[in-house]
Each structure stands twice: as C-alpha cells, then as structure tokens.
C-alpha cells in the first residue's frame, strides 16, 4: 500500500520534472503559476490547515515579499536571490505584528480581520505609501534572478527554480507537520481548551504558524517579482487570497498532497477548459459545491501520522 503510493508520487514527480521538454512555453508558464500557488497554498496550509485559523489575507504577505524585493532590487540593485530571505523576514515580521493582537480571535472574526488586512495592504500600495510603491502602476524593471552564474530568464528556467523551491518546501513542511510543532497546531485546532489544559501555549503556536506561513509567502513574492519583472497592486487583491483559501479547502486541510492537487485543479482546470470560457467558471463552481457536500475534508484529506509503536513495543518485550 505504502509502496504503491511512493511509486505514484515518483511517477508524478518524474513526469512533472520532464514536462518542459514536451510542453510549449505557454503551458510551462501555466505550470510555473501552479508551482507558485502550490508553495503559497502550502504556506497557508500551516495556518489554515494545521492551526485551523481562518486566514483569508495571505495575499498581503505575498505582496509584502514581492514589493520588498522589487523596491530593494530596483533602488539598490541587490541580486534577487539574496533578497529571498529578506522578503521572507519582512513578511514574517509583518505577520508577527499584525497577528499578535488578533490571534485569540476565532473562526469568522479572524476571517473578517484578515480580509481587512489584505485590503489595507492593497490600498496602501495603490496610494503609493512613502512614495516607494509606484501607486497603481506598480514597480517595473525588476532584475532576473541569477543562480550560480546562470541567469534565469525563460519559462523553463523558472520552472526548475519554482518547482525546486516547491520540492524544498514540501520536504521541510512534511518534517514540520510530523513534529512537536505540527502536533501542537493540530491540538489547538481540535480543542483549544484541552490543548491549553495539556500544557500547550496555544497562542504562541498559532502566532508562530502565522509567522512561518507569512515568511514563506514573502519568499514566493520574491520569485514572483523576479518572474514578472513588473508588479502591481492588482496581483495581490482579495481574490488571490480567496483562491489560496479555496486550494487548501478543496485539496484537504492539513494535507500536503491534497494542497498540491488543489493547486493543480484550481489553476490548471480553468486553463484546460479555456475554450469553454463562458461556462468554465460555472462548471468549476458546481464542482466546488459538490465537493463541499460530498467530501467535506477535501479531495485528499491528511493521512494519520505514523509512529513506530509496534517496533518500540517489540524492543521493550525482548529487553
């Protein structure tokens, strides 16, 4: 059973890895967008999926990361990839400041506040705060990233940068969710009072979840800015947050494989059915409704964590 699953994952990875060889630039670019949204949705998954916090303002952290990179790169010409951690830090710091006073809010209340936050960020960008965001025109002339002397320019080059980053993210987040930290988030999501009563500082863990999620979204913003070379506030509107929220809910809250599938469906399906342009959103919407009725936990809900219980008991028995 487990081996079969590993084979499936391996086949999908290899096909994805080779796909730029047989896809044209347009479709590679679609996959690039899927990749960016995969990483964004995985970072939202920590907050929404694992900690269970209804956060619909993730695009704000994405925007902060992108603008940080754009502003510093166009003003001081610091190479893009050096700004990757800087973008993450700025977004993470913003999350720390913003989430701290609202972390105790529950469900729909938190939802409203985070929607407000993403709108505030967008409007601030449009209004050219401090004269550095370029208003509604945005910022252009952002450099391309250079990785080990290789200038990343074409869609297929970005493909490997983005999906490489996605692979690292999946690897690290998988470890994160199978740890004391990941469990603490789940306990807090399942029952806040019981988690506190078991000795878990739930507010602290929720805050850290926000910071890690925002840090990653900020880093994706960096890559997005480099990929587009021009960014504007409209790329980070409320709808982007909704799409990310949708990916996590549709794929499966707290499930990495579910979120990846969700990103492919939410971004890929509308592209595939482009010729039915007028009807595709209708069908897509109907599909979403059906999902929410028949598979409330998402298409691929998380698998239970595995612990080497049997192994430990055997060792105890023989000792």
């Amino acid at each position, binding site marked *: 059973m487990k081996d079969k699953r590993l084979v499936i994952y391996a086949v999908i990875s290899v096909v994805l890895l080779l796909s730029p060889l047989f896809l044209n630039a347009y479709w590679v670019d679609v996959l690039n967008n899927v990749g960016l949204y995969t990483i964004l949705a995985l970072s939202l998954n920590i907050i929404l999926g694992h900690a269970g916090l209804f956060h619909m303002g993730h695009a704000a952290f994405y925007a902060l990361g992108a603008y940080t990179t754009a502003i510093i790169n166009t003003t001081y010409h610091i190479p893009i990839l050096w700004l990757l951690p800087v973008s993450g830090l700025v977004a993470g710091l913003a999350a720390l400041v913003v989430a701290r006073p609202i972390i105790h809010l529950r469900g729909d209340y938190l939802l409203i506040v985070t929607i407000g936050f993403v709108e505030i960020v967008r409007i601030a960008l449009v209004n050219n705060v401090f004269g550095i965001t370029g208003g509604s025109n945005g910022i252009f002339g952002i450099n391309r990233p250079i990785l080990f002397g290789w200038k990343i320019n074409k869609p297929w080059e970005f493909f490997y940068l983005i999906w490489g980053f996605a692979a690292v993210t999946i690897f*690290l987040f998988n*470890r*994160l969710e*199978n*740890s*004391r*930290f*990941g*469990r*603490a988030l*789940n*306990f807090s999501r*399942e*029952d806040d*009072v*019981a*988690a*506190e*009563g*078991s*000795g*878990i*500082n*739930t507010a602290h863990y929720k805050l*850290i979840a926000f910071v*890690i999620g925002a840090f990653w979204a900020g880093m994706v913003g960096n890559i997005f800015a480099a990929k587009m070379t021009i960014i504007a506030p409209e790329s980070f509107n409320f709808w982007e947050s909704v799409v990310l929220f949708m990916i996590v809910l549709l794929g499966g809250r707290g499930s990495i494989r579910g979120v990846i599938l969700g990103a492919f469906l939410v971004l890929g399906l509308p592209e595939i059915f482009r010729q039915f342009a007028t009807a595709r959103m209708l069908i897509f919407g109907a599909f979403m409704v059906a999902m929410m009725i028949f598979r409330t936990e998402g298409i691929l809900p998380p698998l*239970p*964590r595995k*612990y*080497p*219980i049997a192994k*430990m*008991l055997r060792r*105890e028995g023989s000792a």
Partner: protein
Amino acid sequence: MTTLLSLKNLTKRFGGLVAVDHVTFDVEAGAIVGLIGPNGAGKTTVFNLITGNYRPDEGDVIFDNQSIKTLPTHKIVSLGIARTFQTIRLFHKLAAIENVLAGCHCRMQSGSLAAMFRTPAQRHEEHQALQTALQELEFVGLQSQADQLAENLSYGNQRLLEIARALATQPRFIILDEPAGGMNNQETAALIQTIRNIRDRGITVLLIEHDMSLVMEACEQLVVIENGAKIAEGDPQAIQSDPKVIEAYLGTDEE
C-alpha cells in the same frame, strides 16, 4: 506532611451569581482528596479556578508555596498541575497515542526549526516522548489501542485516555473531574485501583465524583461544598454522619 495546594478565600462571581464563595482548604502532598457536593454546587468552577481557566475575583491559589492565580493554564500545567475534564475533551480525530503526546508536549523543547532540520536532539526527544506516551497508555491499560482514533474508544476508555494524557505532563498534582462518569461497576473498581496507583507514583489527587462508593473507598479526605461555599471537611466516615452534609444532599424536613 507538607501542604501542596492551598485555596484561600477563593471567590468567583458570574454576574450576580456567586459560584464559588470564600472557599478555603488545603491539600496535603500525597493525599487523595475528594471534592463533593450537589449538582451546581460549584465544584467544577473550583477546578477551573485552580487550573487558570477562570480567574478568581477574590482569594488566592497557592501551589507549592507560589501563587498561581494569575498564571496562564499552560504555565500551571508545566508547574505540575494536570487535569481531566468533566465532559470528555479529547482530540477526537487524532490517535490515542497522539492524545497522550499532547501531554508530553510541555516537557519537550524542540521547536519549528529543529523539526525542519530534524536535529539529533529533536529526534532523541521525539523518541523519548513516544516512549513516555506508550508507558502512560500502558499504565491506564490502553496500550493495545495506541493507534486507534480517540473517538473510536469506549466511553470508559476515553476517560482513561484523558488520565493518561494528564499523566504524560509529569504532574505532581492531578485533578480528576468525574473520572467515573459513564463507567460501569467493573470499570469503576479498576479506576479506584488506578487512582491509588497514581498516588503511589507520588502524585497528589484531587477529584470530583458523584459515585459515592468510589468517593468513600478511594478518598482519604473529603471537602463538601454547597451553593459555592464549603460546608464540611474531614475523612469519609465523619462526612457521612455530618448533619449539614446529609441536609445538603437529602434536603430538610419542613413540617
């Protein structure tokens, strides 16, 4: 004997209702103490005041010579006070072993970065925690159901799982809120033994229970409260013959 926990004039009001009214009593280290009283007397409120779920309006809670009334719940747990809940509050969608690992949490250190880089210390700690969790499951007799979802356990076993989770915090003091609720006679008899075993590990026990046979058999000292106020305190024999207690439970003859 030293006093481990001491409540001093503890008072809690909800609007006009005085739920807990100047309650004062001490719990000696190593004792099994029962807190009893009619429904709505304020027993669970006392528990919630000790564990920091509620803040007292007056009075103080002293644990191990330290006032804990302003500390957050998770701090109180790490000081060594663990609890179970009257209405079972397990993490229903998670496995029994994970529920117990929740209790291990406060005795662990590694954070998110250690988890991402899977440091040797983090792996060692995870292994230790898993071992502790399995031991606690074994202690309450649930080892064979370690990987079952908590919601699939029987009612009595869910109560035991809550006790295992509380014990995994390595407490010095454990508060059990109606541990026998929903248990049959056989399970209750086993529970009495478990409570004694807990005490034999050096953990002081304070419990609320309506099952009088359990209270009389397991507890060495009883505190009775009615309408939020303490009306009697003493060993089970003395309490059983206390006229005030009989009045509280059976009502007065008004003729």
